[in-house]
């Protein structure tokens, strides 16, 4: 079918990260697949660094509602200020393993309950992918047990959940913008932070003296592919189907490459002199227990029914 009159020449996709990351590759992949599958009726242009909102990634959803952004590929935690249910995957140890991620990706909790929340928030969710495990990394010592955190100044973003998690471990959470982090690490204003291994390597944080990484799988997130509702409705049903296929393919590839990278990180981390600590199941259970009060508190404040379903999906063998 030829492009309808209501189609725009270009649809704008926003994401906070830049080239060189799996996340960016996923978005670019999606844009390419959409153009291929719709015979270039739908052209998506990728704007990295949240440049459409001057880098203010927490304003992306508002900008989408105002028509400035058409496509969002991102974690809902960035928009959790806009919709509080979007914290659903940001609690500590929601995903203890890749198996748990797979279970959630296929669950009704995600594909029905959560997607309906996303629709109400103003956009059509098409597919979701894994973000990657987020680990605590610091310059002082190996973190195995809770008491290892004592006195560590850990940089967190200005959200209460991350601060309370660090306090639960006995560390001192310090908030600062990402722009200040590198300098703060080199001067010792902070001793560490939480990052995915990929981010750690891309931003070369080992040069700031970070040497100790614990594979605790503290957080993980899902990256969702979304289209603004008015834009979605302006497309023909055939094109909608093709765009959804493109998103599913891009999401699957993204999850696969996040995991492939995770396996190959060992060598890369060793090469830059980073000590990777693997926790025993007992040690990890202790970490989970320490953060349980924070988890329970924020589960209650976020959306207990939804999180119950997410837990059930993970715990079903």
């Amino acid at each position: 079918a030829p492009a309808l009159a209501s189609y725009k020449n270009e649809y704008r996709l926003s994401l906070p990260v830049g080239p060189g990351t799996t996340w960016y590759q996923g978005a670019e992949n999606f844009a390419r697949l959409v153009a291929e599958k719709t015979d270039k009726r739908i052209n998506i242009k990728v704007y990295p660094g949240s440049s459409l909102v001057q880098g203010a990634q927490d304003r992306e959803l508002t900008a989408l509602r105002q028509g400035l952004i058409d496509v969002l590929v991102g974690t809902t935690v960035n928009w959790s200020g806009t919709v509080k249910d979007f914290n659903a995957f940001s609690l500590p140890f929601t995903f203890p393993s890749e198996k748990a991620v797979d279970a959630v990706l296929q669950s009704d909790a995600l594909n029905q309950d959560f997607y309906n929340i996303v629709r109400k928030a103003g956009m059509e969710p098409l597919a979701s992918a894994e973000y990657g495990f987020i680990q605590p990394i610091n310059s002082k010592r190996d973190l195995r047990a809770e008491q290892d955190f004592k006195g560590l100044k850990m940089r967190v973003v200005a959200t209460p959940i991350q601060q309370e998690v660090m306090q639960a471990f006995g560390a001192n959470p310090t908030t600062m913008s990402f722009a200040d982090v590198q300098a703060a690490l080199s001067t010792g204003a902070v001793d560490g932070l939480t990052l995915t291994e990929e981010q750690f390597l891309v931003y070369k944080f080992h040069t700031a003296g970070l040497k100790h990484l614990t594979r605790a799988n503290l957080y993980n997130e899902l990256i969702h592919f979304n289209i603004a509702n008015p834009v979605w409705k302006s497309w023909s049903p055939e094109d909608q189907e093709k765009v959804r296929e493109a998103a599913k393919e891009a999401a699957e590839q993204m999850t696969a490459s996040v995991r492939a990278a995770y396996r190959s990180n060992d060598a890369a981390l060793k090469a830059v002199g980073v000590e990777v600590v693997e926790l025993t199941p007992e040690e990890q259970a202790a970490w989970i227990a320490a953060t349980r009060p924070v988890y329970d508190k924020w589960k209650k404040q976020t959306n207990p029914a939804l999180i119950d379903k997410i837990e059930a999906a993970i715990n079903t063998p």
Partner: protein
Amino acid sequence: MLSVLLFVSFLALIVLGIPVALGLAVSAIVVVVIAGVDMPWFGLFTVQQSFDAAIGKYPLLALPMFILVGSVFDRSGVAQRMVHFAVAIVGRKPGKLPIVVILVAMVLGGISGSGAALAAAIGGVMVASMSRAGYPRPFTATVIGSATAADILIPPSIGFVIYSILMPNTSLPALFAAGMFPGILAGIALMVPAYWLSRRHGLGANEGHEPKPALWPAFKEASWGLVTPVLILGGMRAGWFTPTEAAVVAAVYVLFIGMVVHRTIRLRDLVPIFADAMRISALIMAILGMAAIFSYCVNTMGLTDPVIQWVASLDIGSTMALIVVLLIIAAISVFLDGTSVLMIFVPMLVPIIHQFGWDPILFGVLAMMVMAIGQFTPPMAMNLLVACKVAKTSIEATLPWVPWFIVSFAAATVVVGIWPEIALWLPRVLGYL
């Protein structure tokens, strides 16, 4: 087409004398509406989003704080004491007072974040004594105007605050450290024509008759001010505070000097001081907010790609391209103030810097040096303008003197370009790179 409209309408508006912030906003809004016909509300929401996001950045808090530091120390009596101390060191002889001015500007540059405020403060203290000593007023204005231009290089610097916010992967402490030696080098470069011109034209004939203060008491009096730069840079290095907080700590410390140590500031002076700093900050931050709408247009119209392709197609190599870009910045800086230049052009330069693989820290320092020259190059020269006002002379009258200082400052820039270690050594030793 739209990009031509964007730039031409902006230039037309500001040349006519429309304030820079409004010129940016109006030309950008027109382009947003034309490009946004198929968007809800013509895509105008970007006006509010961009304005909000550009100003609503926590690290930007450093900007009003460093301006406050400038406003406070202007009335803190620090400048007067610093001059006494410098005279005590340098001594009294024809040609020495201009060197005192430049020395004081360099040290106070370590407290002040903006050159114009510094020109006002030093001018207030120096103009009378330089006239008595027999220096012509236009010469005095030229020395003050050029010496305070180096302020943008010597940390703290509002120019670097803005640059680090706009340029990805550059940390403010690294930039601050990188500006230090180039700033000192520029100061020394300015001393050469200042001294040489004085001797050659027999300026400052009466200087020898002026009283010479004793060294030790002058040092004790000046010590509170001398410690400030150490506190700012040392505190950041020691991890006591972040760059954003360093600005706040500096403001509190300078307030303490003015109110408690030198007692030049009374409680009731505080409201006008704070109001003053607030207004100057607002003028700058309004430009920042409106420039964000402008750069949104540049970004969404895909303007940077053709520019990069053009620069790449010149096939002149990385070094020549760097020289071309710096010359363009220099030309623009002659007509526009440094912060406006940064806010309009840095977002466009990001991809070019990537393309050629230039070090963003070194590039920032070189760009800042080139911009500093613009701050005392007529016709539109902020620092020179302020210096002329204080010295009660005209910009036209400075024309015989200014070119020597421009050439000398430019030579210092070339030296840093040839030996980048002058800029990069300190941040590396401090562990910022």
